[in-house]
């Protein structure tokens, strides 16, 4: 099991620690519903130090990296980040990621824990300008409508001017950090990348604010599911393509990237299953692995599903045959055939992430 630099903080806070892709991480502190509501109304800190980060420096290195990602890396404006996916030759999704252009000749790439080894091999293999900085980088997400004023109050003035999906270098009490106005909750928020040694002090300083509480993986999951955000390894893996995952808008067709030919062929052929939102009419939840049926006929499978605390009903994501994927289609889910209806995410529309 791997431990983040914040492990002792979580234990002291009473966090219930679980194994997440080989990392010991808190699933909850006071309770998922509490932490979820707190994030939507105030601000929560999440330890995401298990995630992977890479720096890519120089024109050639950036160009080599661009060929690994289906979004248009070259067109990212300095100071901005862009969502994308790394594909295999068959168009299967190895991981999703965010590419931040810190400067004209410098990228910062953030990927997930599960496929980190495979991703590192792809990004760094044969690319001397690429470096895996995960081992000495901690990541603290602060998310919630009050997160801006908290960071500004901590002297990170840049947080006051960053717009959604903008990022920059900054400093906190003399420690260098990267601040990105991104997140996984739908709320106004930031991801802070900092050296391992500095992480506990930064965590404690944020935590000391009355409005800030720690939140675990459980709330992170309900928050992201309400937004319809995908979870790597759960909503997709290498057996699914960006077209199936509903991520076609992140595919830059006019750029060269690994997996492009296979995607073009799939687009041409059509008829692939499509990741779609589903909702129940009551508090029951669809669960990952539930079969989705139209009457008795199986038409898909649930990949994510939970009770949505801010919407008050069950929500989920499911790969569905395209002929039943249109919003408003009545279906049933799981062994008890609970009634579900297809619905277009986000399920929760009042998120503050763009404000």
């Amino acid at each position: 099991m791997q431990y983040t630099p914040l492990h002792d903080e979580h234990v002291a806070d009473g966090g219930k620690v679980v194994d997440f892709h080989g990392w010991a991480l808190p699933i909850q502190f006071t309770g998922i519903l509490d932490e979820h509501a707190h994030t939507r109304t105030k601000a929560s800190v999440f330890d995401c130090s298990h995630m992977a980060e890479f720096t890519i420096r120089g024109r050639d290195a950036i160009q080599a990296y661009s060929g690994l990602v289906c979004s248009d890396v070259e067109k990212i404006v300095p100071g901005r980040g862009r969502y994308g996916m790394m594909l295999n030759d068959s168009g299967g999704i190895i991981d999703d990621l965010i590419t931040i252009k810190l400067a004209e000749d410098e990228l910062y790439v953030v990927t997930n824990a599960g496929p980190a080894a495979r991703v590192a091999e792809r990004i760094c293999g044969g690319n001397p300008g690429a470096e895996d900085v995960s081992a000495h980088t901690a990541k603290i997400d602060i998310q919630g409508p009050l997160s801006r004023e908290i960071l500004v109050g901590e002297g990170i003035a840049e947080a006051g001017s960053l717009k959604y999906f903008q990022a920059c270098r900054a400093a906190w009490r003399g420690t260098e950090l990267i601040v990105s106005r991104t997140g996984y909750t739908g709320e106004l928020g930031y991801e802070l990348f900092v050296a391992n040694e500095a992480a506990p002090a930064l965590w404690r300083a944020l935590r000391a604010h009355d409005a800030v509480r720690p939140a675990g993986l459980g709330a992170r999951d309900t928050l992201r599911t309400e937004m319809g955000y995908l979870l790597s390894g759960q909503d997709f893996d290498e057996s699914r393509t960006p077209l199936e995952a509903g991520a076609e808008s992140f595919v830059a067709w006019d750029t060269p990237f690994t997996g492009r030919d296979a995607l073009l062929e799939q687009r041409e052929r059509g008829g692939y299953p499509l990741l779609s939102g589903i909702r129940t009419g009551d508090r029951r939840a669809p669960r990952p692995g539930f079969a989705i049926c139209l009457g008795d006929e199986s038409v898909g499978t649930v990949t994510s599903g939970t009770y949505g605390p801010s919407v008050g009903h069950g929500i989920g994501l499911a790969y569905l045959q395209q002929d039943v994927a249109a919003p408003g289609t009545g279906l049933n889910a799981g062994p008890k055939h609970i009634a579900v209806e297809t619905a277009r995410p986000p399920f929760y529309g009042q998120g503050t992430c763009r404000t």
Partner: protein
Amino acid sequence: MFPAECRFTKDHEWIRDDGGQHTVGITAFAAEQLGDVTYVELPEPGSRLSAGDTAASVESVKAASDVYAPAGGEVCEVNEALDGKPELVNQDPYGEGWFFKLSDVDADELEQLMDAAAYEQFVGEHSE
């Protein structure tokens, strides 16, 4: 730690004689394991259950699981308050968070269930 007036199952239900009728719920240990309860499906009043029958189901944010009848009997009342306030299961598992009541319970079947001391030991052996 567990109420002495209840009997317990290995599936973490409790049953208590409330003067002829028997009240059934899930233990504080089960509620803690489930986390925040978000939905409870209760049996039909009037339905007849045998010991071990699936009687109810409980969903939390994290998981869903079935609740079994600790003993046979007829469902004479269900806790409709759980419909709007499933969190009662977490807040007061032996009180306001009860699930349903059984009549005509066979006392011999109750004898086969664990008492509080035995259940406490069972939980100790089966957690972590």
